[in-house]
């Protein structure tokens, strides 16, 4: 047990920004006594953390039972989901009002809002404890989970993608139905390496060619497609204007960020700066390179509803977009929208490992740089 005051241990801390419900929404931090996070996810108003010991911690709003704690009361401290302790939790994904998780044994569980069948349980009744989605078996080795407003997705190691929930905008890639309550496979005939569910749109990346496909709500350029292709927005379509190999994609409320081998691209809505393309471009359907970070190697991207975060290979972090509530991690009480990627100076002496952006908040897991453990400090 550390007794130096507030000093982050070598194993790192989770830093909270914006309306997390933790520490009265003041920028804060916490850590685990003998455990470290391996997966962070933020929903609209709730958060999930999976640790190296395969435990699941949840906190935040809980109106729909999205914390899986058997009640609907908000929780202001990360709380271990004891019901899942016998299983080793590996991944978690928070949607707007629901949560899905997967275990090492190949089980997938869901809890929370279910108005569009996003829990994958065959009905539209909400749950306040984690329920097993019987569709998945030990044959499905889950590699990634993602959740949108009322959508869920699970990607397997061999590149099979399964989605379920709201399809009102075609955001789970089905042509004719408005929603489905059980997982169904989304395929374009090629194995898939990455999935992201935004609020009302979705995107995935193919393994072999690193191609980007987008589908769902077509407004404001967030699919990155020319207008003549938007009539087919309900099925995954190739974003052919990105020349290099795509590694990751992150879908937010109205915007999309794409990490390629060479650069970062942004498209969609940027009225608050969430595209990071400066003070003159508030919307684009044409993917544009973030020139500002060209000299930096970005290794991870995350989109909240109206903001964006990017981790660099040297452990730095940039944020941009809607600055309200301090969710960009750039100050204690004075906030503003950021239209260019802005380095979070709070983490100068840390190595940022993980980031997750939600509706009005952001979680960052960072470890102190060797011998430089520092207190979280903001300028007044």
């Amino acid at each position: 047990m550390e007794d130096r005051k507030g000093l982050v241990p070598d194993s790192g801390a989770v830093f909270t920004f914006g309306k997390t419900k933790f520490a009265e929404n003041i920028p804060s931090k916490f850590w685990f006594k003998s455990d470290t996070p391996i997966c962070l996810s933020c929903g609209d108003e709730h958060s999930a953390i999976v640790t190296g010991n395969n435990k699941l911690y949840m906190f935040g709003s809980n109106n729909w039972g999205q914390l899986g704690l058997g009640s609907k009361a908000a929780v202001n401290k990360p709380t271990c989901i004891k019901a899942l302790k016998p299983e080793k939790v590996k991944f978690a994904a928070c949607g707007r009002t629901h949560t899905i998780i997967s275990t090492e044994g190949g089980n997938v569980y869901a809890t929370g809002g279910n108005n569009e069948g996003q829990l994958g349980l065959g009905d539209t009744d909400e749950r306040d404890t984690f329920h097993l989605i019987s569709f998945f078996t030990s044959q499905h080795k889950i590699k990634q989970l993602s959740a949108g407003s009322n959508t869920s997705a699970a990607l397997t190691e061999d590149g099979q993608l399964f989605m379920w929930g709201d399809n009102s905008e075609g955001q789970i890639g089905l042509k004719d139905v408005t929603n489905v309550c059980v997982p169904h496979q989304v395929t374009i005939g090629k194995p898939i390496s990455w999935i992201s569910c935004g609020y009302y749109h979705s995107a995935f990346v193919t393994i072999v060619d690193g191609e980007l496909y987008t589908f769902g709500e077509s407004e404001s350029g967030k699919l990155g497609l020319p207008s003549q292709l938007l009539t087919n927005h309900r099925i995954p379509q190739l974003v052919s204007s990105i020349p290099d190999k795509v590694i990751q994609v992150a879908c937010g409320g109205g915007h999309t960020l794409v990490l390629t081998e060479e650069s970062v691209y942004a498209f969609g809505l940027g009225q608050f700066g969430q595209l990071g393309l400066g003070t003159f471009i508030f919307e684009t359907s044409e993917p544009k390179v973030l020139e500002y970070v060209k000299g930096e190697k970005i290794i991870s991207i995350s989109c909240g509803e109206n903001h964006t975060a990017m981790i660099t290979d040297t452990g730095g972090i940039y944020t941009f977009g809607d600055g309200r509530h301090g969710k960009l991690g750039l100050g204690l009480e004075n906030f503003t929208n950021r239209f260019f990627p802005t380095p979070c100076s709070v983490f100068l002496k840390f190595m940022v490992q993980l980031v997750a952006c939600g509706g009005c908040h952001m979680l960052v897991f960072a470890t102190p740089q060797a011998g430089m453990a520092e207190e979280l400090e903001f300028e007044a």
Partner: protein
Amino acid sequence: ASEGSEAQTTDSDDIVTPVFQNSPKAVSEKMCIEIVSLAFYPEAEVMSDENIKQVYVEYRFYDVPLSETETPVSLRKPRPGEEIHFHFSKVIDLDPLEQQGRRQFLFTMLNGQDPEKGCLKFTVVSDPMDEEKNECEEVGYAYLELWQILESGRDILEQELDIVSPEDQATPIGRLKVSLQAAAALHAIYKEMTEDLFS
């Protein structure tokens, strides 16, 4: 800086939480001003003026440096029907011991005895692209009446104010959206100052 020391508390779930020991400043000892967004009316002259390419917004508050009360960026001039979003919020310290000057300044405004007759004045400024050739130009003003907050006892949440042009203060050219969290502070200041008057 985040004053106060941190101590640690733990709970049964193996979570360590450094807790700030200092209590946050009371709401009656600060106020928060947010410049939310702005739009111009399609027919306004500023829309057709090609010299106006980007704008920012500023206000003045007693001794607070202007660099802290102007939006840190200029944004592209909004297109017809478009809103541009600053979300620029600033907390102003109104500590009764250290900021008597600011409290007196607000009291004077509440009495309408200040040059702007009790209004916080926001200025919309055109920021030239070529700073060497052109200068910043004021293109509009918006006025927020402070008295309404004291009267209603309620903070102002995203209120739309008319923007008027410097030449013709009668014809609105657009709307500026602002928020002001100050009800508790203004109430405390008014009470304290009027008590002083009659004691």
